[in-house]
């Protein structure tokens, strides 16, 4: 099938491809010398480099702007499935200089959602961020590969680029994508990261935790990292109009309901720490909250400022 001489040239060319992946300028200089050393070397390298690009064919890496309400960024991560399912062909052209690098004039802008609102932001590189209600997210047109989550919750479907990983900043924490769909939530000093697809790296310079699909971490400010596996989808449930709670405090339940229902929900101090587990289908506030109260064994009432959970005794008064 392959001429014998090509074998050696291919092996050498693959070696160069591997070396140049994270190559320094000196590696490229040495590579130039190798190219010049035999007339067939360039052809071998090109064969290998083009084959390497074929691996991207499923991902459609060209940055085609999508409508802001396009809620189907699934295709971006399709190349994930590559090994199993050959699907979706589109030209794969990697132009590393097409996207402005970091350090271009900063042009930050904020995405702020009202409680209950849900918005999809599509970035220039095709990455999509589904922003939950009550969220404040800072993006930068000049630094398209980073986002700062000030508060709230967002689901990131990012177009992976090993040369320029997508970074989510939460306070002093950093979440670095490695080809990924993941959710980051930040409320009352509590950080949650859950990976639905692919993997991310948490605080590469510090804890350097690799989280893969299904993993999630929970961390109170300055506290230990609580890691669990297998419930990543739970965190992204709100996208599908459902909230899953596993051993969550009622304080936490109220905060999440508040953001997702778009109405203030609070909880009496004496039951705020009570634990709650269950799945809540989001609907109109009154029946949704009634259902939560029912499951939690508490009462709920609407006063002038919003909804509030009470102990059942008080609520019955």
């Amino acid at each position: 099938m392959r001429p014998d001489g090509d074998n050696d040239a291919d092996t050498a060319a693959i070696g160069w491809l591997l070396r140049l992946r994270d190559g320094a300028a000196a590696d490229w200089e040495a590579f130039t010398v190798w190219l010049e050393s035999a007339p067939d070397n360039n052809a071998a390298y090109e064969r290998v480099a083009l084959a390497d690009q074929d691996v991207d064919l499923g991902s459609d890496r060209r940055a085609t702007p999508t409508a802001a309400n396009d809620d189907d960024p699934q295709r971006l991560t399709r190349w994930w499935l590559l090994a199993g399912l050959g699907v979706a062909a589109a030209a794969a052209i990697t132009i590393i200089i097409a996207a402005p690098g970091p350090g271009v004039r900063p042009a930050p802008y904020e995405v702020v959602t009202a409680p209950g609102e849900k918005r999809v932001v599509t970035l220039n590189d095709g990455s999509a961020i589904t922003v939950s209600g009550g969220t404040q997210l800072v993006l930068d047109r000049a630094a398209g590969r980073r986002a700062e989550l000030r508060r709230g919750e967002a689901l990131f479907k990012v177009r992976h680029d090993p040369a320029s990983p997508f970074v989510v900043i939460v306070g002093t924490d950093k979440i670095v994508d490695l080809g990924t769909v993941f959710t980051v939530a930040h409320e009352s000093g509590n950080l949650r990261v859950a990976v639905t697809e692919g993997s991310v790296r948490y605080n590469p310079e510090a804890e350097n935790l690799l989280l893969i699909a299904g993993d999630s971490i929970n961390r109170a400010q300055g506290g230990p990292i609580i890691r669990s596996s297998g419930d990543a989808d739970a965190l992204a449930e709100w996208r599908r109009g459902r909230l899953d709670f596993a051993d969550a405090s009622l304080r936490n339940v109220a905060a999440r309901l508040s953001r997702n229902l778009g109405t203030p929900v609070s909880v009496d101090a004496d039951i705020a720490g009570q634990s709650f587990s269950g799945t809540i289908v989001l609907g109109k506030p009154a029946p949704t909250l009634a259902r939560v109260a029912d499951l939690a064994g508490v009462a709920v009432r609407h006063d002038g400022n919003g909804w509030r959970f009470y102990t059942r005794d008080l609520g019955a008064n």
Partner: protein
Amino acid sequence: MSDENTQQLFLALRPALIRFLAARGLGADEAQDAVQDLFLKLDGMRLDAIADPRAYLYRAADNLVLDRRRSGFRRLNRETRWGGLAAPIGPGIDPQPSIETLLIDRERLTAVADALAGLPERTAEIFRRFRLLGEPQREIAQTLGISLSAVEKHLQRAYAAVVDARRRLDVDFGSPRGHSSGGESDAA
């Protein structure tokens, strides 16, 4: 070029880039043009935030050649199918891929997927980490508890399979220069 440092860096690296582009199969004039293209595309960018700006420029130049080669193949495949000539170096990438291009890409993707599916599990896992997750080889070696050279061997094997898949397709598609996709400078 709005940033002075970028401009200086670029000018300093220009001869080396032209030499590199020539080694990558571009003629002298084409290499000059390509460097000019690169220069225009980088206009307004500040490279000082990039870890190794010189390596970045080399990579950008390399991608430029690959893009031209790829779009050149497309044109040739679609229009003329000249057997003996290599890809022309033209200015444009097809704005819209043709149906034929998409079909060819689909074939390629299927071929690559098949090639990867045929790899031993360990090799496929290492390739996936390296190529899809972007994990450095050193890290893969640490995670899996094997040596760096073992990682490289697995990657060699995976890439050889992918290259073979492409080579077989090129024969099918009657790609210019068959399996050898070199530049015009080596068209004997």
